């Protein structure tokens, strides 16, 4: 390679690195541009991902069926065919049973909390282990908007950070840039649950005088205007009181197994149901606009839809 060519490459690379640094700083402060781009790429990739997932599911199904049939292959062809049919049917039924269970838990959550929303299927995980995110098969056209909370039967999954027409990106609660205003259910201590990656979270800003124990349930406070109040985030798995510092070091294990997500529920709003009021008077008081607990729940989602679901908003 000629020295001149090397010099040119060197100059171009340095310029590209400098440009990248500038872009990083700029998009770090103005994530809207990045989100638009991410939504476009997601829109480009989601049909292929969905088709591929279908194909892979079929392939894995066939491979499973083949492995299961290896033992009976030598016995009888007729019997083999029968078993093959039964195995395929069994696989289908098992899948249907698992899906049924999952959807029931979602429906149960929907009924208990009075949540309105959209059920979505996970189509892909982020291609890098540095970020914790997933893509779902519902987008702008289905009513999904940036800042909506995403839950699964057992608790919070994350929030929508970008939408395209038919798919959306969900930032998992374990991502480093995720933050949820939270309460420890037993002691009512407040803090912010931040992601640590790899299925771990930390509960920050809980002062040393607060009593927090292992296995305590951590729930959303609703103050961040993204997650409705009272949704389960996870359980305290470790509490350390360091010798110095104002706050405790608390680790939280998410209630949802984020590595095995298949169907999720995007919360688009809350329904005020008469069952959640302690008495009929409370129900009428809410109708007049004087029941603080429930109205704060609805305000959180309906009157102030969030647009910047980052830590800055939540602190």
């Amino acid at each position, binding site marked *: 390679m000629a020295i001149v060519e090397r010099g040119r490459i*060197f100059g171009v690379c340095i310029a590209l690195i400098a440009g990248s640094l500038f872009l*990083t700083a700029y*998009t770090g402060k103005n994530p809207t541009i990045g989100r638009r781009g991410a939504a476009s*790429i997601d829109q480009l990739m989601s049909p292929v991902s969905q088709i*591929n997932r279908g194909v*892979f599911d079929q392939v894995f199904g066939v491979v499973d069926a083949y492995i299961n049939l290896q033992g009976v292959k030598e016995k009888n062809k007729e019997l083999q065919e029968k078993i093959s049919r039964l195995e395929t049917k069994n696989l289908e039924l098992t899948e249907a049973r698992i899906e049924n269970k999952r959807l029931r838990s979602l429906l149960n959550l929907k009924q208990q909390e009075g949540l309105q929303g959209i059920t979505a299927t996970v189509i892909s995980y*982020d291609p890098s282990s540095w970020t914790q995110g997933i893509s779902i098969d519902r987008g702008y056209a289905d009513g999904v908007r940036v800042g909506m909370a995403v839950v699964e039967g057992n608790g919070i999954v994350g929030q929508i950070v970008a939408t395209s027409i038919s798919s959306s990106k969900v930032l998992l609660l374990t991502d*480093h840039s995720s933050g949820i205003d939270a309460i420890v259910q037993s002691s009512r201590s407040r803090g912010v649950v931040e992601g640590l*990656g790899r*299925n771990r979270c930390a509960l920050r800003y809980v002062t040393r005088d607060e009593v927090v124990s292992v296995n305590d349930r951590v729930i959303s406070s609703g103050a961040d205007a993204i997650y409705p109040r009272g949704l389960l985030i996870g359980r305290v798995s470790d509490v350390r009181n360091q010798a110095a510092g104002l706050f405790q070091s608390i680790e939280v294990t998410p209630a949802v197994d984020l590595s095995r997500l298949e169907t999720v529920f995007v919360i688009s709003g809350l329904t005020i149901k008469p069952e959640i009021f302690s008495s009929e008077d409370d129900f009428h008081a809410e109708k007049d606009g004087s029941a603080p607990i429930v109205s704060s729940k609805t305000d959180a989602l309906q009157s102030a839809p969030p647009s910047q679901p980052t830590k800055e908003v939540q602190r």
Partner: protein
Amino acid sequence: MKNIIAHFLRALLLGLCLLVIQNLLHFYFHAVEYAVPNLLIIVICYVGFFDLTVKGAFTCWFLGVLLDLSISSIIGPWAGSFAGVFLILAFLSRGMFVQSWFSSAVVVFLACLVSTAMYASMLASVQNIEGIAWLYVPFEALSTAIVSPLVFSLSRFALDRRQDRLRGRRSR
């Protein structure tokens, strides 16, 4: 000009294909727990070995932007790190026996570690990266090195067009 546009379209297609494969690997092997290969860094190494031109540098940067866009709203860290890796390869690859699968895999392993370090340092300027599980990084590099021969073949098929090769010979 037409050739350059065609080259970048091919790079875009290759990048998207690899990202879809990477997505699927993450989906089926539960990436939250296990390290999955970074397929794009293999393409960067391929370009660093066989396309040491300004166009190659832009291809690397372009693929980095694509990866940035596909994972988060912050554009730049992967683009910068890929350009950095290309720069290092541009000055070192002349001294390597790049036709050997083993030496290529070793370079991919090292390139993966370097790009991750560069990515982390660029990301740290805008985001808190405290608590990241650094332990998985060597495993990611290892899995990337293992699959590198396959992706090298794919990259050769997608990026190394006959026309380009002929033009390369003529310029030499």
